[in-house]
C-alpha cells in the first residue's frame, strides 16, 4: 500500500503558496502578542508547523526541508538552549534561575516596547514545538517516500 502520488491540485498549490507566508507571519504574530492576548510560543509553534505541513502536502519532503533551512533536530537544540539561556540571564544579576527581567525600549514610530526574558523563553518554546512536530512529520513522510 503506497501513498498515492501527490495529486497535482492547482487550487491547493496556488492557495498554498499564498497561505504559507501568511501563516508563518500569523504564527509570529501569535508568538509576540501571546503575553497579552491569546497566543504564545506553544500556539505559534503549532501554527507554524501546520503551515509547513500544508507546504508538505503540495510539494515534497526535500522542498519542505529547504523551506526551514535548519534541520528540525537543530531546532530542538536551539530552542532548548534559548529557553535555558533566558533563565540564566537572571543569574548574572544574582537572581534565581528563570527570574523574569524586563526592559522598556522606546522605538521611534512604535512607541514603548517592553522586552523581557519571558519573551526569549517563549521563543525557545516556539522553536522546540516546531522542531518536535516537524521531526516527526518529516521523518514519517520521508519513510513514506523511501
Amino acid at each position, binding site marked *: *500500500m*503506497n*501513498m498515492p502520488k501527490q495529486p497535482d491540485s492547482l487550487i491547493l498549490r496556488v492557495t498554498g503558496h499564498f497561505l504559507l507566508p501568511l501563516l508563518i507571519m500569523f504564527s509570529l504574530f501569535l508568538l509576540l502578542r*501571546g*503575553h*497579552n*492576548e*491569546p*497566543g*504564545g*510560543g*506553544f*500556539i505559534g509553534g*503549532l*501554527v507554524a*508547523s*501546520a503551515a509547513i*505541513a500544508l507546504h508538505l502536502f503540495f510539494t515534497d519532503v526535500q522542498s519542505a526541508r529547504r523551506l526551514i533551512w535548519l534541520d*528540525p*533536530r537543530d531546532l*530542538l537544540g536551539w*530552542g*532548548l538552549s534559548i*529557553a*535555558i539561556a533566558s*533563565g540564566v540571564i537572571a543569574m548574572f544579576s544574582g537572581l534565581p*534561575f*528563570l527570574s*523574569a527581567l*524586563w526592559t522598556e525600549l522606546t522605538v521611534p514610530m512604535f512607541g514603548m516596547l*517592553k522586552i*523581557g526574558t*519571558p*519573551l526569549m*523563553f*517563549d521563543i*525557545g*518554546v516556539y522553536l*522546540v*514545538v516546531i*522542531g*518536535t*512536530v516537524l*521531526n*516527526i*512529520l518529516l*521523518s*514519517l*513522510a*520521508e*519513510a*513514506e517516500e*523511501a
Partner: protein
Amino acid sequence: MLYALLGGFGVAALAPWLHQLFGRHSGWALALWPATLFIYFASMLSGVNDGPVLVSHDWIPSLGIQLSFMVDGLSLLFALLISGIGVFIVAYAGRYLEQHQDVGRFYAILLAFMASMLGLVLSDNLISLFVFWELTSITSYLLIGFNHEDAAARRSALQGLFVTVGGGLALMTGLIMLAMVGGSYELSTLLGQGDVIREHAWYAPMLALILLGAFTKSAQFPFHFWLPNAMAAPTPVSAYLHSATMVKAGIYLLARLNPALGGSQLWLTVLGSVGAITLFIGIWLALRSTGIKKVLAYSTVMALGTLTMLIGLGTDIALSAAMAFLLAHSLYKGALFMIAGIIDHGTGSKDLRDTGGLFRAMPVTAVTASVAALSLAGVLPMFGFVAKELLFESVLSSAASWITLLVVAGTAMTVAVAALIGILPWYGKTAVTKRTPHEAPPALLAGPIVLATLGLLFGLFAPLVDERLLGAAVSAVAGNSVTPNLALWHGINVALGLSALTLALGLCLYFCRDQFRHYTRFTDTLAKAGPERGYDASISWLVKISAWQTRFFQSGYLRYYLLIILLTFMALVWTVMLIHWPALSMGIDLRGIQLHEYALVFVLVAAALAAARSESRLGAVASLGAVGFTVALLYVMFSAPDLGITQVLVETLTVILLVLVLFRLPGFLRLTSTALRLRDAMVASAVGITMTCLLLFAADARLYDSISHWHVAQSMPGGYGRNIVNVILVDFRALDTLGEIFVLALAATGVLAMIRLRAEDKSK
C-alpha cells in the same frame, strides 16, 4: 582552607596536561601539590592544641547544608598522612607507570582521590562528609579498574564499588538519623551531644547503619574480601588507597564519632568482637598467601581490625594505642607496598616463592624493607613497638579474655608475616627471576626510605610525637583532654613479656611456614564458602531479578505498557481516595447547565462511542477528531481561548500525522479475541470512572485557598502581561514549561530514532 581542598580537584583536572608538559619528570612536578598541602597542614599543628578550628562556607543554604570544615587533632593527623604519603606516592607513580600510556589519566584520578579524602577527614558537615566519602569510593573504583582491559581488574573494581557504596547508602541513612537525633548537621555540635544521642530510641538502628558504612569501607569481617581483590590496582594505588588512606576512612569515622556514639555496651561489644575477628582472620589469611601484595593486603585487614577493636574498647589507653597504631601502620605499610612494587618492577615476580637473595642486587631496597618490616613486627626501637606495647596494655586492662588471646596470637603471626616480607625475598639462596634484578631509581626509593626512617625516628623520639602530633588526636577521639604517654620503654611488665613471647612464637612460625601452610590447608575450603560466595550469589540474584523484571515490565508491546500504566494510576489514585474517603464529597449541581451545553456533551459522548465502535480506521480518526473539536469548543465556552486554540491546532496536526501513518498500518482487522476486548473495555471504563470521580471530588474539595486569584492579581504588575495563561507558562511556572519542552524534545528524538531505525532495518 576551601582552596586547599577544592584546589585539589583543579590540579587533578589539569594533571593530564601538566603530565605532557613535564614529560617523564611529571611525578616530581605534581608531587609539589601534596607537598604544599603538607606544609600548610603542618603549620596548623600548633594551633589545634587549643581546640578545633572551624571554617564554614554556604553551600546549599536553603537546606542548611554547609561546606564547613573542622581542623582538630584527629583530622589533622589524617590530613598530614594523606598529603605526606601522597607526595611520595605521586613521585613513585611517575616512575612506576612510566611506560603506561594513560599516566595522565592516572594522575587525574589519584589527585582527585587525594582531594576527596582530605575533604572527608576535614568536613564538619555530615552531608559534605558523605559526599566526599562517596567520591573516595568512586575514585577508588576508577583506580582499581585502571587497567580496564583486564577482566579481573574490572571485576575487582566493581566488587569494591558495590561493597563500599552499598555500605555508603546505609551510612547516609545513619548520618541523617544522627543529625535528626542530635539536632544539627555539624559534627562540632554533635560531638557534644553524646548523652542525648546514646539515650535516644534510635540509637541502636542508627549505630547499625553507620557501622555498616564504616565496616564495608574499612574491610571488616565479613566484608574483608574486597580489599585483597583490590590489589588488582597498580601498586601506588594499593600503597596509598588500600593501606594508608581510604580504607582508614571507616576507622576515621568511628574515631570521629566516638565522643557522640561510643561508650555504650553495644558499641563495645560490636566493635570489640568484629575488630578482633577481623584481626585474626586477616593475619591468618596473610600467612596463608604467597603473593607479596596479597600478604600485605591481608595484614592490612588485620591492622584495620585492630584499630576497630581499640576504638571499641574506648579507654584512654586504647584510644592512644589506636592512634599510635594508625600512624605506625601508615608508615610501614606504605613503605612495604611501595617495596612490593619495586620487587615487581625490578624482578618481574609478584610471588614470595619466586624471590630470594635480592640483597646483592638491590641492597638499599633490602635494608629499607627490613627496617619497615621490623616496625611491622613491633621490634624495639621502632615506632611499631611503641604501638604494640600500648595495644597489649589496653587489651590486658579492659578486653575480654578471648579477645586478648586473639590479639596475642594475631601479633605472633604478624611477626611471621613481617619476616616473610623483611627476610625471605632478600637473603638466602638467589632465586632465578624473570628480569635481572636491579636497584630501583630514586623516585621509587624515596617514599619507602623516608617512611621507614620515620618509623625508626618516631620510635626513638616517641614522647615528642606524643606531644606534637598524637596528643591532640587522641584528645579529639576521646572527647576530652588525654595525654597518651607514648614511650619506648615502659619498664619490665606483662606487655613487654608478651612482646618477647610473640616475637619468639612468630619467628618459630616463620621457620615452620611450610608445615603451617600444609597443616592449615583445610581453611581454604572454609574460605571458599566464605563471604565472597555470598557476594557472588547476591550479585547473580540481582542480575536474575532485574532480568525478570525487565522482561515483565518492558514487554515491548504498547498495549501492555498502557495497561500497566493505567492500572498503576488507578491503584495509586484509589489508595489515596480511600484513605481520605470520609472527607470526600461530590457536589453535583445540574441547575446552571444550559441546553446547548447538554447538546455538546451528547455529541462528545456519541463521537467517543463511535470512535470505539468504528469498523474502519478512517472512521475512527474522524470520530476522534470530532471528540477533540468538541472539547475545544467547550474550552472556548468556558473562557479558555488559549486552550481552545491549542486543542484545535493539535487536532489538526494529529489528523495530518495519522494520515501519514495510516498507510503504514495493517488492515483494520479483528486481531484480538472477545475476552481480550472485554478486558480492555473494562480497564478503559474503570479509568474513565476513576478520572470522573477524581475530578468531581477535586472540584468539591478545597483544602487550600485557590491560587488563581493570586495569578490574576499578579499577572499584570508582576508578569507584565494580560494573558494570564501565558504569564503562568513563561514566567510564574517557567521551570515546569522548561521541563515540558525537554520532554517534547526527547519524545521527538525517540520517534526520530524509531523511524530511522526501522527504515534502516528495511533497507538491509
